[in-house]
């Protein structure tokens, strides 16, 4: 009879895991890519959020968003791939950490918040792109976005302290 082996246990036995752990700079290289990714992502998100909250009113929100969004996606993809690799290598240890679970839940919450913004108030962007205060829905989204992504960053950094060595 087959014994059920958790998926995250199988992950640690893949060639990818071996490659990362056996290459001297494999693990830090993935950490650097993960940091690159979230800096691009969180940085570009924060720029848009600050603009929505009234910072730099001469920057048209629509133009700024069009410019920043590809960076946000690129950064998100990069931190997801690199973060996924870091996860796979030590999956059974990560998955049981409450702070890791919190981080993942917040990432999902951050995405939902972004979706509400884009499919909600942003659809009428032409009415408030420049020289006018953003509507309260946009400001609320911006505040949630800043808080959520800052907490994701904090959870990520604190994994090293509440997790394993």
């Amino acid at each position, binding site marked *: 009879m087959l014994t059920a082996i958790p998926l995250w246990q199988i992950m640690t036995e893949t060639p990818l895991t071996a490659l990362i752990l056996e290459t001297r700079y494999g693990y830090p290289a993935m950490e650097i890519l993960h940091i690159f990714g979230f*800096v691009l992502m969180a940085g570009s998100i924060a720029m848009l959020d600050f603009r929505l909250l009234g910072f*730099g009113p001469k*920057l048209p929100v629509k133009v*700024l968003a069009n410019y920043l969004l590809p*960076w946000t996606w690129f950064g998100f993809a990069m931190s997801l791939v690199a973060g996924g690799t870091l996860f796979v290598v030590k999956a059974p240890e990560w998955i049981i950490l409450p702070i890791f679970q919190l981080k993942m839940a917040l990432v999902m919450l951050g995405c939902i918040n972004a979706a509400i913004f884009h499919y909600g108030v942003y659809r009428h962007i032409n009415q408030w792109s420049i020289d006018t205060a953003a509507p309260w829905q946009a400001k609320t989204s911006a505040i949630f976005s800043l808080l959520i992504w800052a907490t994701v960053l904090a959870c990520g*950094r604190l994994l*090293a302290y509440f997790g394993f060595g």
Partner: protein
Amino acid sequence: METIIAWASSTALSIWVVDNMWVWPIAETLHFFGLSLLLGSLLLIDMRMIGWFKRIDIRATHALLPLVFIGFAINLATGILFYFGDPGRYTINIAFHIKMILIVLAGLNALLYYWKIDPVISTWEAHGNTPLIAKAIGASSLAFWFGVLIFGRLIPYMGTG
């Protein structure tokens, strides 16, 4: 170097960081926030300086400069805490040395910006192309700061004797 380490370890700041175990993780978290602010806003400013995305008024991007300084101030303050919290480790670390050199280069590059670009930027066409020197300063700035990020992360992995 021994003298520097001995002096730094004996300061009140060093003792405070070492005695309060919550200081380090909080400072590291803030260091990430500062990094994102610094690089996030520089990305916009520098890419526009390089000549990308001319639909944005170049002077409007420079309204973001305070965010760069806030990010840098956060990272300078928390960085000082790290250094004094573990001087024996940083003083002799190669990745830390390279990181500091890159920060100095980035600082000189910023001075070049304030010398050559800042006084004339108001005369530039809002949505026009940028002169070669602006492109060079923008590209160097991004290269230096991403180098700072890389060597910062490598501190625990590289050359602590």
